[in-house]
């Protein structure tokens, strides 16, 4: 692996013990994020993107449980840390921006104080006054005019874009090494989305923060990410450099996904949609989950789980179509059925 590796997630498996049965939320999530680079995590609703994000911070609440896998952050396995060590990592090393700024900010605390709170959580020696000052500085850096006054406002007094700026300030004020952005712009007006993305990119670059960008908007991904990992039903089915994956998608699902983007040049072309439905995650994982919807489906896809084939250094794909075209990814044992504890 490259020396500048920051985060690597390996065969993460997360199940939810619900009343309706065991939900196999994540089965084999593997990807890595390099320092100062952005990885986009794509996939449709319910494929496990947000669960992945929460797992990294170990914020999976019961009935959810991380069954197996590793999350290496700067060489340390986050799943092996104790609660206090993990708490120290949250916020100061890894931060997470949520989707909806309006409900992600405490309605009864002034936004400036919330930004300051992040600092105070991690630095007991810091006094409230200087934390507030830093918070205001951070807000100003995010292009908030008159940051001192805005910092005294409550969340409901701010617009969506302003709220998301506050969220970003809150998460970047501690200068974390990794920022997880869980669909940071999907709740915003299209006109504001661009601004927010640009700001995020600029600031993370200045601070030197890597970004794990979760989105289902492939346009956003093309614009902001260096790497892309495509998820389907709890599995990362394709990962590679953004230009490789978007220009030469290999997995049939990625190909279909890209075809669903409406072509703005041709108004008469019918919209493309992937046939079939997202599979139920209640069923155990015994074959390729995309098989029922796939155009290239083979017999084998219905019986076996495809391993990940490494096509080249920057592109891997989990599909039997590529058998023999590349080595099977990493250590082979990770594809064996792991006994559940």
């Amino acid at each position, binding site marked *: 692996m490259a020396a500048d590796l920051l985060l690597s997630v390996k065969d993460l498996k997360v199940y939810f013990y619900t009343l309706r049965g065991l939900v196999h939320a994540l089965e084999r999530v593997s990807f890595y994020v390099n320092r100062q680079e952005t990885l986009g995590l794509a996939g449709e609703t319910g494929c496990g993107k947000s669960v992945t994000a929460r797992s990294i911070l170990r914020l999976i609440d019961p009935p959810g449980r991380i069954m197996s896998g590793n999350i290496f952050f700067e060489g340390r396995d986050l799943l092996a840390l104790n609660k206090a060590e993990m708490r120290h990592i949250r916020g100061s090393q890894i931060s997470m921006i949520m989707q909806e700024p309006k409900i992600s900010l*405490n309605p009864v605390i002034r936004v400036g104080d919330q930004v300051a709170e992040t600092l105070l959580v991690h630095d007991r020696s810091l006094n409230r006054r200087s934390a507030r000052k830093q918070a205001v500085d951070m807000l100003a850096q995010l292009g908030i005019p008159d940051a001192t006054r805005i910092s005294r406002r409550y969340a409901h007094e701010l617009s969506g874009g302003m709220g998301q700026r506050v*969220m970003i300030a809150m998460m970047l004020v501690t200068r974390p090494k990794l920022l997880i952005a869980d669909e940071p712009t999907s709740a915003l007006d299209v006109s504001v989305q661009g601004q927010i993305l640009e700001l995020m990119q600029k600031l993370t670059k200045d601070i030197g923060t890597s970004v794990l960008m979760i989105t289902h908007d492939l346009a956003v991904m093309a614009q902001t990410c260096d790497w892309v990992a495509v998820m389907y039903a709890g599995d990362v089915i394709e990962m590679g450099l953004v230009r490789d994956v978007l220009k030469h998608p290999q997995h049939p699902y990625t190909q279909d996904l890209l075809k669903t983007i409406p072509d703005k040049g041709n108004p008469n072309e019918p919209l493309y949609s992937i046939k079939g439905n997202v599979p139920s995650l209640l069923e155990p994982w015994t074959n390729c989950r995309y098989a029922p919807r796939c155009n290239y489906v083979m017999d084998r896809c219905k019986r076996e789980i495809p391993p990940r084939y490494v096509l080249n250094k920057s592109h891997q794909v989990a599909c039997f179509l590529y058998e023999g075209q590349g080595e099977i990814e990493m250590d082979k044992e990770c594809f064996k059925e792991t006994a559940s504890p």
Partner: protein
Amino acid sequence: MRTLLNVTKTFDKKAARSQRWDARKRYLKDSYILWRRNRLMVAGTLIIVFLILVAAFAPLLATHDPYEQILHNRLEPPSIQQYFGTDNLGRDIYSRVIYGARVTLFIAILVAAISTPFGLVIGVVAGYFGGLIDEILMRLADVFLAFPKLILAVAFAAALGAGVENAIIAISVANWPGYARLARADTLSVRNNDYIQVIRSMGASNLRVMLGHITPMCISSIVVRLSLDMGVIILTAAGLGFLGLGAQPPMPEWGLMVSDGRQFLVNQWWISSLPGFAILIVVMGFNLMGDGIRDILDPHLR
């Protein structure tokens, strides 16, 4: 409207401060209007203010020493010299009722100060952690809720021994489960909010989340509940006094005074009735005020 216009002005500290001051003034003014509109609440508040003033200036208002026994002067009916008459030991009932306001307030305030924080902590912890902790704490609360408050208070007071301090402890013990349940319910509704997740994802400890972000959200409903409970607390204290488990003679406690007059109820009605009226009026005052506070704190009515 004024605040909206001010946004366009450039920021200066003085303006911001006066803006905030304006907002606070507006809030108080609105509260005042709501308060005045509710006649019953005005009455309740005046009663409570009156009670507090009486308690504060008891030595000035009292005409006699509340403990002084003038035995040749016993069982005198109300007169110009002794407004409420005298009891079986010749003590001036008016002065005793005045001093009784102090005892009543003392008990009510201490019970509130003990049982609300305790209930709040138990409720927030139970609601926040859920699962087994929730189960244990709430079943414990259920045990206390299974008995009528007065019965439970009597049992505890009897076990601890008679006395004002023990009565306070007994009433607090009987009272906390109500606040715990309320705080738990509020916690459950706040806990799953996204902003709590955000705070946790920032690395805040459970203690910090509970103290800084959940407890403040529970306070307002607890305050309303407490103000409605005040009457019950005073009634329970008087009940304990009446049964001889609360304040001990010769303390001028209203419940105790009612009890003292029992045997003279037919011929010397004033010994029991007048302290009884004091209890009635104060309890009513607290109840009326509590109802009003609920309305004032309800943002939908603004």
